[in-house]
């Protein structure tokens, strides 16, 4: 069987969305909705990767659920965390390390991992296991684990729902209202329009052969950023629209990143769910550990190191290549620079001066352009295919 990534141009995805929206809104009994949504997720999974592979993936999810239960019930976490973490990491490398993926292609593992969006699933697994280790929540059920780790509309490219959000708003909620229906359809239409009309126009007019280095990168860098935003946010629009139709809470992933005035602002607007995941699971723990060992007087230094660690890992999460590592490093340097600049400015001109600085339109416009330039620059190692 030929295993492909989820193609939104083919009917099964839309049959699943419409079927789920209709069936879930017809059922009044709330507890029945969770297994029904899990059945829809499993059915689409079986269509994508075949029944045998889907059974193996679901068996893996049940194993992950069992690990989560054991982590919650014990204070000795390592006997469970080490094997589960190493296996997750190994599967991640199979998907994201180009050489490993190619050598294991014949086995069929890499296409399955790609089709189920394993890199996103791995981040959700970390969220789940961390919540169990910290005893923040009671363990969720096996069926809820399927809905949390592999919701079909968030499978290909996120968003990454936090476990707190998933538990606070159960996977399948209230009835579909007329406003939900029209707003869901509108978001889906907006996603299609961005992808097939606007992004296609940018691609045809401004992007050419990106692998040839040269002066044209000055135009192609920002154009690539605009295209990437349109293409990526189109998926998020469709995921949010589908989630709205099915009444499955789906977090927002973008908030006008092209008007960000600095890199910290940019990462609060671009791929928001990933940015929040990094903040919760890498940045804060790293920063806290460093502050505890170096003392509170060196908070700026600790934050800088935490940015470098968090965004280097973020780069490698995209793909285990030098280009993506440099992308992460460039973003981290931008974030560190903004953090230091902000701190120095606060000390030098005080709160009133900062308010005036932020209100200045010319400074704002320059800051937005500088941010766009830095974001474009950071993409060059990736565009070049390093």
């Amino acid at each position, binding site marked *: 069987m030929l295993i492909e*990534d*989820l*193609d*939104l*141009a*083919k009917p099964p995805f839309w049959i699943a969305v419409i079927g789920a929206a209709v069936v879930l809104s017809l059922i009044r009994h709330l507890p029945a909705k969770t297994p029904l949504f899990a059945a829809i997720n499993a059915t689409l999974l079986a269509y994508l990767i075949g029944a045998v592979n889907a059974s193996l993936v679901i068996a893996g999810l049940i194993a992950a659920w069992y690990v989560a239960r054991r982590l919650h019930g014990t204070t000795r976490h390592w006997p469970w965390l080490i094997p589960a973490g190493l296996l997750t990491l190994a599967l991640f490398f199979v998907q994201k390390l180009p050489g490993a993926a190619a050598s294991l292609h014949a086995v069929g593992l890499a296409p399955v991992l790609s089709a189920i969006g394993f890199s996103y699933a791995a981040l959700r697994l970390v969220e789940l296991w961390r919540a169990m280790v910290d005893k923040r929540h009671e363990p969720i059920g096996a069926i809820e684990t399927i809905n949390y780790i592999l919701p079909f509309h968030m499978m*290909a*490219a996120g968003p990454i729902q936090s476990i707190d959000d998933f538990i606070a708003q159960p996977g399948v909620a209230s009835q579909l209202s*007329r*406003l939900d229906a*029209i*707003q869901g*359809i*509108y978001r*889906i*239409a*907006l996603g*299609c*329009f961005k*992808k*097939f*009309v606007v992004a*296609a126009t940018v691609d045809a007019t401004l992007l050419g052969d990106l692998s040839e280095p040269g002066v044209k990168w000055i135009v192609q860098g920002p154009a690539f950023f605009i295209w*990437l935003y349109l*293409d*990526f946010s189109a*998926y998020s629009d469709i995921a949010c629209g589908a989630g709205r139709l099915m009444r499955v809470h789906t977090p927002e992933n973008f908030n006008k990143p092209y008007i960000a005035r600095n890199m910290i602002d940019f990462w609060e607007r671009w791929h928001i769910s990933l940015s929040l995941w990094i903040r919760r699971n890498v940045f804060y723990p790293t920063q806290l550990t460093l502050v505890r060992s170096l003392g509170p007087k060196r908070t700026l230094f600790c934050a800088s190191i935490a940015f470098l660690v968090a965004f280097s890992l973020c780069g490698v999460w*995209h*793909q285990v290549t030098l280009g993506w590592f440099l992308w992460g490093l460039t973003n981290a340097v931008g974030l560190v620079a903004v953090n230091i600049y902000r701190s120095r400015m606060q000390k030098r001109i005080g709160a009133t001066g900062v308010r005036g600085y932020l209100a200045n339109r010319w400074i704002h416009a320059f800051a937005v352009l500088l941010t766009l330039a830095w974001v474009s620059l950071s993409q060059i190692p990736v565009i070049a295919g390093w």
Partner: protein
Amino acid sequence: MEFTMRLIKLVLDPGPDRPVWRYWRLACLSAIMLAASYMLARPNQPFFYQGF
């Protein structure tokens, strides 16, 4: 003229007190965007996530 301006305002920003207009506006915009997407999509163009 005044009627046209009011109509444009209703389409662009119907306001929270006009839910029917909001539905129609969203429905019309959705139909236009879907039609444009359908017409401009290349034949058999896949809809994969092409980023990473």
